[in-house]
């Protein structure tokens, strides 16, 4: 989408749960160094897509390639360069921050694991909390602890599934600045889902909008705003775009889009 070599390519991905189709034949790609906002209302299929990308959930059809390799065939080597962060999944509560990061450093086979843990703690200004048990950290600190885990293996591709859900604006602002800084320094490729449109406007180069398991719009935040709201728009307004697109009802029977918002 940015013209850079694709780091992540998803082709015709399908995932069904019994009779419910959670992800319905979607295809997209993310170029090297790009931040892709992956948006959609609750239950649209975002987290299922991410779980398929991680191999946590088995896809029913389609192909997922990361760094040009088929994830189904090369999962172990691919995942050493990928990491994941979600506010929904915290690090184990009864371990200290240092212990948690050491476990994950070993899981990702990081060389000089102890040194890397200290580096990440320093980078995210959490050195003082290294011996603190996770359950004693505040919500904002836990979000940073999750980021520490997500960066432990210096990932080339980072999957962020609502990493700052239910955080206060100050924490979100710090988190966004952190993501921007890290992405710039490490030239990381990021897939970012959030329901906070301000976050996406701040970081995303491009946006894919998914609803009922199907991609219904994609482009840069400004392109989408012009496409969905007003051709003459000068600033992106993803909040309004989100509302507009979410209210478009997909007519599965007819195989097309039926707009019920107007």
């Amino acid at each position, binding site marked *: 989408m940015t013209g850079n070599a694709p780091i992540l390519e998803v082709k015709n991905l399908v995932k069904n749960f019994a009779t419910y189709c959670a992800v319905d034949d979607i295809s997209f790609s993310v170029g090297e160094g790009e931040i892709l906002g992956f948006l959609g209302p609750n239950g649209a299929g975002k987290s299922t897509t991410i*779980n398929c990308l*991680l*191999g*946590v959930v088995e896809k029913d059809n389609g192909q997922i390639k990361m760094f040009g390799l088929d994830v189904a065939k090369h*999962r*172990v*080597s691919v*995942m*050493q360069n*990928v*990491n*994941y962060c*979600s506010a*929904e*999944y*915290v*690090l*184990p*509560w*009864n*371990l*200290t921050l240092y*212990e948690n990061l*050491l*476990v*994950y*450093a*070993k*899981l*990702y*086979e990081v060389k000089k694991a102890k040194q890397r843990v200290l580096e990440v703690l320093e980078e995210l200004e959490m050195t003082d909390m290294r011996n603190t*048990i996770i359950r004693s950290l505040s919500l904002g600190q836990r979000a940073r602890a999750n980021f520490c*885990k997500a960066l432990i293996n210096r990932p080339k591709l980072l999957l962020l599934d609502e990493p700052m859900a239910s955080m206060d604006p100050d924490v979100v602002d710090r988190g966004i600045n952190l993501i921007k800084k890290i992405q710039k320094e490490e030239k990381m490729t990021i897939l970012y889902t959030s329901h906070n449109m301000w976050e996406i406007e701040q970081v995303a180069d491009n946006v894919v909008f998914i609803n009922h398991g199907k991609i219904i719009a994609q482009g840069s935040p400004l392109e989408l705003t012009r496409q969905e709201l007003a051709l003459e728009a000068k600033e992106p307004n993803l909040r309004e775009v989100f509302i507009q697109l979410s209210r478009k009802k997909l007519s599965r029977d007819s195989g097309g889009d039926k707009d019920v918002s107007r």
Partner: protein
Amino acid sequence: MSRDRIYAMLLRHYFLTTHHLERFADLLIFPIVGLVMWGFLANYIQVQSSSLAAFFLGGMILWVIFERVGTSIGIDFMYELWEKNLVNILASPITTVELIFSLVLVSVTKVLISFAAMVVLAILFYGFNIFSLGFMLILFWINLILFAVSLGVFSIGLITRWGHSAGPLTWVLPFMIQPFAAVF
């Protein structure tokens, strides 16, 4: 299989045990309390028949191996669910075989600690040495562990398929098998 990833999981459960006092209960207190309780019964029975007393104590020690390994694999897996950490683990490069192998290693290590404590206490308190059962004990021990591991992996399968609601089966399954476990 990667040694680093298996070591990571062992480290995770080592840290978990050192931070959870109740895990020491699982490791030592429950097996010892069980041994003492059955030991009193065996002492009473010894008056009638010493072989019957050995039958109870030996059975108790062997049952603990089976029950602890069988439940520990499922419980350690459940900890990842309780602590909402399973997706983080599965999103790492770890393979299913490595994850299960590390859980088996953790439970066998724990049962070795419990077994050692029980053997020593059975000798000290009741003068019962389980090794008097001879070489066949080792083969039987291996057999029990393999059976318990299969049961533990089966529990993981149930939990993965049906989630938390299948969790209590981790504790129940070994007792359902008890009459056929051949430990007594």
